[in-house]
């Protein structure tokens, strides 16, 4: 219980730190939301100046931060210049969509990476290990966006998969089962991209940790006792490698969140990614701060989840001082 309390307080501190830095960074970046209007010959500079003043751009940064904190307390999370509405209403649905995508991708990536990493560690240097290493190198060498585009290109060619978005146009009229199926089809491309993009990191770390464990005396002892094969690998060796892997889990949540940004944009997934990118490039700063806060929250929960898993799996930690 005490542990949770501490995590929550740390989480809050982190959120405050993130918000302050976000504000400072956004102020340091050149340009502001209303700049684009200047390029339109039909809008006069005084109109642009009027808009700037109206949204408090001529006030000092501290004033704006205070204003923002106040609106967070009111539950509005700031105001979007582009959408002319409170940021919170923009975030909720999109955060859910991002969570669906990254949650599923994290789960799948681990479900694939753990057996693969454990297996290749056991088969070190053999053909299957080499194949896995070569393919992870390939995946590492291609930007995520290119992986997504290749998959989309393939989807265009095979005609059976949707090439982006989250739901078909006639989604509203479908039954529950058909809706789920439609959603699943739309998930194929973005989830596959994210899984492929995060696999190299996971597989290699799992493999490396496992190799270390497999050489530990207790594994040799277990082998001598006649425990072998999958039982040895997964029941005895894997838990011993849990500690470093749990840090990896916390990280992989964060990595996927940042990785999903561009993938969401190119696959038209209606998550935080397109919103954040649009807002960042348009300098709709409160939306950016809001979206970053949402990702931070995800990450804090990912970290807590990782710690809980660690406690559950690694007896040393359970008995220790945590």
């Amino acid at each position, binding site marked *: 219980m005490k542990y949770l309390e501490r995590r929550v307080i740390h989480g809050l501190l982190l959120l405050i730190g993130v918000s302050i830095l*976000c504000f400072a*960074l956004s102020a*340091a970046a050149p340009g502001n939301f209303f700049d684009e209007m200047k390029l339109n010959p039909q809008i006069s500079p005084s109109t642009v100046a009027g808009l700037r003043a109206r949204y408090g751009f001529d006030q000092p940064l501290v004033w704006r931060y205070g204003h923002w904190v106040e609106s967070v307390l009111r539950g509005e999370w700031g105001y979007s210049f582009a959408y002319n509405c409170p940021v919170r209403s923009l975030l909720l649905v999109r955060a859910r969509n991002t969570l669906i995508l990254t949650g599923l991708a994290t789960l799948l990536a681990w479900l694939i990476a753990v057996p693969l990493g454990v297996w290749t560690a056991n088969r070190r240097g053999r053909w299957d290990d080499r194949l896995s290493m070569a393919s992870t190198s390939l995946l590492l*060498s291609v930007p995520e966006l290119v992986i997504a585009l290749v998959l989309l*290109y393939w989807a265009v060619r095979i005609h059976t998969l949707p090439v982006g978005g989250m739901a078909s146009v006639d989604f509203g009229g479908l039954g529950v089962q058909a809706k789920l199926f439609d959603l699943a089809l739309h998930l194929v491309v973005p989830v596959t991209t994210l899984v492929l993009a995060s696999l*190299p990191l996971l597989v290699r770390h799992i493999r*490396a940790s496992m190799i270390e464990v497999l*050489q530990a005396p207790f594994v040799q002892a277990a082998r001598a006792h006649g425990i072998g094969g999958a039982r040895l690998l997964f029941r005895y060796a894997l838990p011993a490698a849990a*500690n470093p892997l749990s840090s990896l889990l916390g990280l992989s949540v964060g990595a996927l969140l940042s990785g999903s940004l561009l993938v969401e944009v190119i696959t038209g997934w209606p998550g935080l990614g397109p919103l954040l990118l649009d807002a960042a490039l348009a300098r709709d700063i409160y939306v950016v701060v809001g979206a970053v806060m949402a990702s931070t929250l995800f990450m*804090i929960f990912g970290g807590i989840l990782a710690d809980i898993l660690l406690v559950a799996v690694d007896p040393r930690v359970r008995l220790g001082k945590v």
Partner: protein
Amino acid sequence: MRKKQKIVAALMLLVALHLAILLAGFIAPYNPATQNRDFPFVPPTRFHFADARGHFHLRPFIYQWTVRPEGFNEYEEARGREYPVQFFVRGPEYTIAGLVRSDVHLFGVEGPARIFLAGSDGFGRDQFSRIMYGGQISLAAGLLATGISLFLGLLVGCISGFYGSWIDESAMRLVELFLVLPWLYLLLAVRSFLPLHISPTQTFFLLVAVIGTIGWARPARLVRGIVLSAKGRKYVTASRGFGATDSYILRRHVLPHTYGVLLTQAALLVPQYIVAEVTLSFLGLGVSEPVSSWGNLLANLQQYNVLASYWWMFAPALALVIISLGYLKVANAIHERLQSDSI
């Protein structure tokens, strides 16, 4: 003994690859910035041994590409004249490592034909030459940035994992902060403070600094995890009981456990950092035209039409795969070696 050979073999491969890239000027047939505006997006040149009359030539030859009359950016071979591939030919001047000046190239053909080993880009520039030259900047930047990241990561991770308590807490919050911040803005701000035009060398150092400093968070977190579990082991407690100092325990019992993670990270980070330049160049922080780097070559692939129409534009990815496999092999070999030592 076998393990030693393995390391040597892997190292030899890497050295050979790097040497080739260092000698880019000699190996690449053309200047990477030269545009051939009549030949945008030509496919890789085909080598022939048998000519139209069915005669066999020991020395391979090529045909010049010509634009197919209808169709856009589509080419066919002009069968009229054969151009034998020549070795050690004179071509555009280049310098190697800023020391040796020369104009002799490993291979080439007589003009007006051009040999495009890996096709050409949208300006008709020879992609093979661009890959060779681009490797110089990208590899150096990737290696240096990896070094910085790992050094910082190891430092923070060790201290944080070993000493625990508030040091650990604050370090880990800092890690999280680094992982979630909108770096886009920081980089934009950095760009706005820089002079407009920065030379390729300056860009290079900038890339290294930016990527390296942002990237320390992940290795730090991983190292900390290892240190945490290592220091909890019995023999550490035991050696502490024997009066070992912190630094002794760190050096002797804790650090060796981190090598595995560090090596894995190293082999991962180099290609990742090279790819990261794609994003940086979007913000105006990448290597700018007409200088090539693997990052800006890969960025071409982010356009759907390029990816869907011109398969040879994947060539830089292939080069990166080969190099990163090389690093992986070396990392694996060293890792194995260390482990066998420690047992």
